[in-house]
């Protein structure tokens, strides 16, 4: 390939000029990087000491930005709704599916309660250590995925998922409204929270309760996404 024939001189020179311009701007910008780019976190970290929660990320997700988390859960619900709308199948093609390996069946049956237990642990201890509702919910959904892969007859009851999801959504909003009535702010922390109780399972007032609710909601929605995507593959 001859560069001079295939690419015109105007293109080459303008490319060189723009690359030089970008590099100049970048070098000027990179020389003047401030030491600390964000400063809102320090005041939040100071406020954090009043909540009795060891993990500051949990406090930001659930308490300081709790209303945004409600909106994000709504986005997740709409995505799950759309996938169910696109991929729902009328018939369950369980008949012509290949029976899976015996070792896979046994291993999945052994691992399923352990993974569920780990997901519940990550969900419940979200205010004391790494983890929380989002991660725990997705871990539970991956356990459900393992059962779907191994067993032909495993099926999530729509009734149960519907009840869990409705309960989680309604109780999130209800806790927020109770906080609005009692403490004068939406999602206000109306339960007793004290820094002296730090390390107990029920420290931090409403923070662990709301994270468990988020975990139930995320887990049921992700499990529904898994079921919809796998069921579509059965019947064609």
């Amino acid at each position: 390939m001859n560069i001079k024939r295939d690419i015109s001189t105007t293109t080459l020179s303008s490319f060189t000029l723009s690359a030089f311009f970008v590099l100049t701007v970048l070098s000027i910008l990179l020389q003047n990087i401030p030491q600390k780019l964000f400063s809102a976190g320090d005041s939040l970290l100071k406020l954090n000491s009043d909540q009795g929660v060891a993990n500051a990320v949990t406090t930001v997700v659930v308490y300081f930005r709790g209303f945004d988390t409600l909106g994000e859960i709504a986005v997740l619900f709409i995505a799950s709704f759309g996938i169910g709308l696109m991929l729902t199948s009328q018939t369950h093609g369980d008949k012509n599916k290949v029976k899976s390996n015996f070792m896979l069946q046994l291993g999945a049956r052994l691992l399923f309660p352990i993974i569920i237990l780990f997901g519940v642990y990550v969900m419940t201890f979200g205010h004391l250590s790494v983890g929380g509702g989002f991660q725990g919910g997705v871990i539970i959904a991956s356990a459900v995925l393992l059962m779907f892969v191994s067993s032909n007859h495993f099926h999530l009851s729509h009734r149960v998922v519907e009840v869990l999801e409705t309960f989680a959504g309604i109780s999130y909003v209800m806790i927020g409204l109770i906080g609005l009535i009692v403490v004068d702010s939406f999602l206000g922390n109306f339960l007793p929270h004290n820094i002296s109780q730090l390390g107990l399972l029920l420290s931090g007032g409403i923070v662990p309760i709301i994270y468990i609710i988020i975990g139930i909601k995320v887990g049921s929605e992700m499990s529904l996404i898994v079921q919809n995507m796998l069921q579509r593959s059965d019947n064609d």
Partner: protein
Amino acid sequence: MIEGILEYLNQTEVIKTIVILGSMGLFFVGLFGLLSQRHIIKVFISIGIMEIAVFILFIGLSFQKGLTAPMLGDAHTSFVQMNDPIPHAMILTAIVIGMAVLALGISFAIEYYKLTGKNRLDQMNEMKH
């Protein structure tokens, strides 16, 4: 010699420069894939890589050398000398939402493929005529 290089790389400005240039490179690798590949799964993979680049940039800019994770533990009993928790919280929710929206897009692509039998971007030309 080696100590000098390590010392140079450990400066705060150099770390920030590595973060910015590296995530920019990853973003442009994803953009290159988005523009050059025609298969729709490759396009989704490229979008996922661009998402990861943005996450890395956001977390990396809030990182300061010498500060710990925003979490109390055995050695830390008060909320001082810790990283900023706000970018962590925002990116944590963005990852979950991003994957759900990616699943929604792939379900649209699957239905489109069932209807028309096309899975490449250069074949999708219904709007042209």
